[in-house]
């Protein structure tokens, strides 16, 4: 059965590029693209929600 992937929405208007989500993602799903965070490797996501919890700018929404 195919693994159901979550959707990670990044609101670029809110992202201030602090790197917290990129650095503390345990499976390195996110990366910086210029000044804002972006999804690099969605398949590695384990839906731990740490990026959403720690984003100080309300810029990440993870829907499992």
């Amino acid at each position, binding site marked *: 059965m195919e693994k159901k992937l979550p959707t990670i929405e990044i609101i670029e208007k809110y992202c201030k590029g602090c790197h917290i989500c990129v650095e503390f993602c345990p499976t390195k799903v996110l990366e910086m693209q210029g000044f804002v965070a972006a999804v690099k490797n969605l398949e590695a996501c384990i839906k731990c929600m740490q990026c959403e919890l720690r984003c*100080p700018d*309300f810029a990440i929404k993870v829907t499992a």
Partner: protein
Amino acid sequence: MAFDYDKYIRPGKLPHIWCPGCGHGIVMKGLIRAIDSLGLDKNNTAIVSGIGCASRLPGYIDCCTLHTAHGRAAAFATGVKMAKPEMNVILCGGDGDGTAIGGNHFIHACRRNIDMTYIIMNNNIYGMTGGQFSPCTPTGAKASTTPYGNPDPAFDVAKLAIGAGATFVARGTAYHATQIDKLIAEAIQHKGFSVVEILDDCPTTYGRRNKFKSVIEMMNRLKDIAVPVKAAEKMTPEQLEGKVLTGVLYKQEKPEYTTEYAKVIERAKGAK
């Protein structure tokens, strides 16, 4: 499932004013989750703050909010609680606002044990006014007013609150985001004055003066110094050197102020 913060945020208020990497946003999310988990009525919840970066928080949340004079959050909140004892009153502010400029209001609110929750976001500095040292700036740290290092010892906010008579004292950090909402929710449920100190980071005015290369380094510091209360019981004093205890540090039941005041009113009525 993504938590829907939008229903608690005033439309058009985001993005907020806090700097990139500032932990205040993480604390605000924790507060919103705590309010949601307890199912508090927005119209029956007042969030009161003073002046400062952390005190901007109520402006974003769609509850009854009050943004008051510097350090006077506890005084205004006491007024709100006395007028409407059924209201949930939550205060928020920084370390400078709460323990220096509002230090007297803070200790006397603790002493009265009035049923409110004070969230102190301790980032070790006055951020908004330009990086002056606060009573929570560690000894030796640099601030705009202590360029050769701060000679003063820092306040331990939790011990100060316990000593002044607060009946619920907890501490968390901005790094341990999942713990924040649980601590705040427990503090709100506690009948009496509750203090939740959240250790925070200020990359702009504290970090860059004190050789923190990035926000990540500041967050890792919070991760390294925090020790849960239960884990600390098994550690030696040497191992606890430089560490900070997190979790619920103190909890006690004592008569609550508005209840006691209602009795005074009853007694006064009988005296006529």
